[in-house]
């Protein structure tokens, strides 16, 4: 018994000695085939991927709006309102799984989803490929990059590659992590310390500050009972695995660029960061955070806004 305690103490000491920050910066560059990225962008912005040629990926993932649509629930074809909030496509390549409930393993796999979703693009592959094949420019571009030409797999790969190119390095906080201590103010540093002390860091960690584990929404206090009106989308991973254990379980979202991706949560219920922090503190940590500390955490979260192609996101 004593021996075990000792080991624990020694280990926790060791942890302090070689203390590493639980958050790591985003790499400044990535090696991606620029031609495929360019083709992926064309597809991402192409409305022909939807049944009635009205909606492109970019309609719901507008880079000018932080890679989201800034709506609580997305609006798909025929002005249909979706069931869930659209997460940002920025840095989605760093997530261990895609979608709130992680039902797609990779970005490639994910592409299938919105194209077929009746409330999003309402189309299917045969339709999409037929439309694309009528376009000489696409025929040429695909032929140049993929020997087999226009195929499902190749469309998926090009789009996924484009999405991987949507990474946002050099946030002020990343600069701080890289050793520039002046990159963030002392209040922002305090905010970071509180973020760690309160235990947000237990879930929001790693390079993407989230995006690498699942967690029940409402660990210590049931969120959905309080909110009421539970929908299919609220079941989270339960809809994927069918296991009671996974009810209300979601992929912990990345907090990168969180300043510009409001509204928050899968239901888009939190309109401001302060609200989101409040909800997190109560439901995930079982605590209440004093007003001024909340403020500090919020200003810390705002240091996570990165740059895309060298320009700070807005």
């Amino acid at each position: 018994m004593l021996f075990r305690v000792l080991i624990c103490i020694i280990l926790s000491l060791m942890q302090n000695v070689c203390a590493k920050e639980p958050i790591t910066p985003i790499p400044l560059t990535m090696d991606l085939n620029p031609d495929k990225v360019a083709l992926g962008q064309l597809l991402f912005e192409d409305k022909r991927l939807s049944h009635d040629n009205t909606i492109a990926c970019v309609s719901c993932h507008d880079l000018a709006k932080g890679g989201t649509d800034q709506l609580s629930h997305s609006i798909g074809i025929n002005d249909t309102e979706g069931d869930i909030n659209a997460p940002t496509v920025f840095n989605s390549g760093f997530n261990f799984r895609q979608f709130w409930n992680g039902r797609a393993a990779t970005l490639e796999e994910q592409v299938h989803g919105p194209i077929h979703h009746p409330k999003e693009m309402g189309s299917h592959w045969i339709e999409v490929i037929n439309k694309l094949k009528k376009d000489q420019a696409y025929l040429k571009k695909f032929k140049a990059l993929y020997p087999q030409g226009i195929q499902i797999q190749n469309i998926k790969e090009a789009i996924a590659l484009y999405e991987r190119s949507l990474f946002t390095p050099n946030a002020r906080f990343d600069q701080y992590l890289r050793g520039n201590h002046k990159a963030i103010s002392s209040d922002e540093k305090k905010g970071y310390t509180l973020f760690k002390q309160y235990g947000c860091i237990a879930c929001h960690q790693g390079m993407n500050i989230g995006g690498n584990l699942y967690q029940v929404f409402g660990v210590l206090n049931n969120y959905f009972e309080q909110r009421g009106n539970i929908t299919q989308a609220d079941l989270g991973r339960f809809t994927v695995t069918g296991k009671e254990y996974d009810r209300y379980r979601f992929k912990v979202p990345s907090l990168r660029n969180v300043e510009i991706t409001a509204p928050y949560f899968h239901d888009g219920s939190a309109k401001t960061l302060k609200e989101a922090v409040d909800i997190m503190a109560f439901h995930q940590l079982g605590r209440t955070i004093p007003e001024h500390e909340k403020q500090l955490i919020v200003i810390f979260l705002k240091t996570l806004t990165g740059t895309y192609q060298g320009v700070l996101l807005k």
Partner: protein
Amino acid sequence: MNKIFTNIVTVLSVILLIFLYQKTQLVDTEQHNQVISTLGTLKQLEAVWINQVLHSRLALNNNYDAMADTWITLETTHQRWQDFQLKRIYGENIAHAEYQKTAYLAQITKRREYIEQFKSVNAILSNSVRYFPTAVSELMRLEDTKLLVGDVNALLSAVLRYSLLPEKETQIQKLIDNLQEKGALSEQDIRSQINIIASHARTILKYRPYIDAILEQINILSTAQKIDLLTTTYVNLQDARLNESTPYHQMLMVFSGLLLLLILFIAYRLRVSYTALNRANQQLKTANDTLEQRVTERTRILSHTLEQLKDSQMQLVQSEKMASLGQMVAGLVHEINTPLGYVKSNIQLIQTIFSNLKHVLQEYRALIVNIPDHISNGKKLKTQIEEFDELKEDDSTGEELLKDALYGLKQIFELVINLKNFSRLDLSNISKVDLHEGLNSSLLIAKHLFKNKITINKQYGDIPKVKCAPSQINQVFLNLLTNAVQAIENKGSIIITTRVKNDHVLVLIQDNGKGIPKKVLPKIFDPFFTTKDIGEGTGMGLSISYKILQEHGGNIEVTSQEGKGTTFTVSLPTGI
């Protein structure tokens, strides 16, 4: 018939070879090795993965990125495994291996689910354990909580102990209920803080044993054994395949051995015919070579003959030239000789007459003294004799003039004799010749070239007469002298030396002219080689000279120093 048979045999053996080869190719060792190494990678990755789980449990890992990355690597490795064409590598008998593979994938998927659970639970548990003491001190900081101190502390130490060693759960449950009961009557803020503490304590109670259970499950679900089994299965399949292909291997060996023998035999046959061919070729080549040799030989002889022809033509021209020159000179000599003869005898006659006249006049003078002036014409006579005396005063002059004339004539005679000598040579054949004579006559002919600028230095030695054609030898001397004169630009001298050396007579003609450049030296004996202006030289002089000496069994040599001068040495055999 024979040919058809050969063709059939060839086709059949190729087909057999391909068949045997394919049968032996059944065993793809490289692919098999890759499959085995993929399994090895999987095992290793899983070990890493579990290590990362334990690190997270002990809070040595402070984020889950590494774990997530390992899973992605595992998935891509699974994909690689999936991509192997196992049926091609191991044949149709892979049902069992496939079953084992499915079992493995199911297990690792399950393991992964537990690991995901671990990540969730670990985060929550560590948060609550870390927060719990803070939560308690936050409660104690509130007013009117003194009554609760004992219960709170009991709960705190029980929970912390529990977090290390999950035992006595019910006791802690009681402590929680106790605290909540006691606080029920307190102020709102105390109550809610107690609730927070309670909920965290319950979270710890719930998740602390849970995480142990998860870790145990993760441990149980280790796939290492399954991977080992799979490895064995694949290795067995591979062995079976190897066994299956062994007879084919042997057959292939035997067959290729036979083929090798056949090829050796063919090679031997080829070699034999090649040797024969080679020999024939060799013969042909020899014949060719001989032919070529003969042709060159012929060409050489022909060109030699041509050269000889050219030479004799040149000689012919030369002797023709000399012959006509000789005839002309002979005619000229004859024409000059006749008048010259009587001019000479006349002048000699005049000389005699003149001296007789002198005597007569002296007699007269003696007589005239005695003659008186009044005698008729006496006076006239006297004056005439005196006049003559006046003339007498110059009588030496008169005699001198005649002497001079005679000398001149003698010189003309000499020239004519020399000309005669020179031309006679053409007519004459070989005779004993005094070379000095030849040199002198050549000098005389060349005299007009010397003008004032050249002095001749004769150093004649004691040499015997030489058997030769004097006209030709003289021509040699004349050529050499002409060249020497032409080589001297301003003033200079020519030294002519004669001497005996062994059984040869040497004639050296040495000038101190401009000399001959080294580059030019080997060419000077070539016909038509000249460095002189058109009209001045034909380039034939030395070549003819050379020719002449060759014919006499003699030689002509040259030494020269540019800027200093040239020496030509003519040597002629004395002849006995």
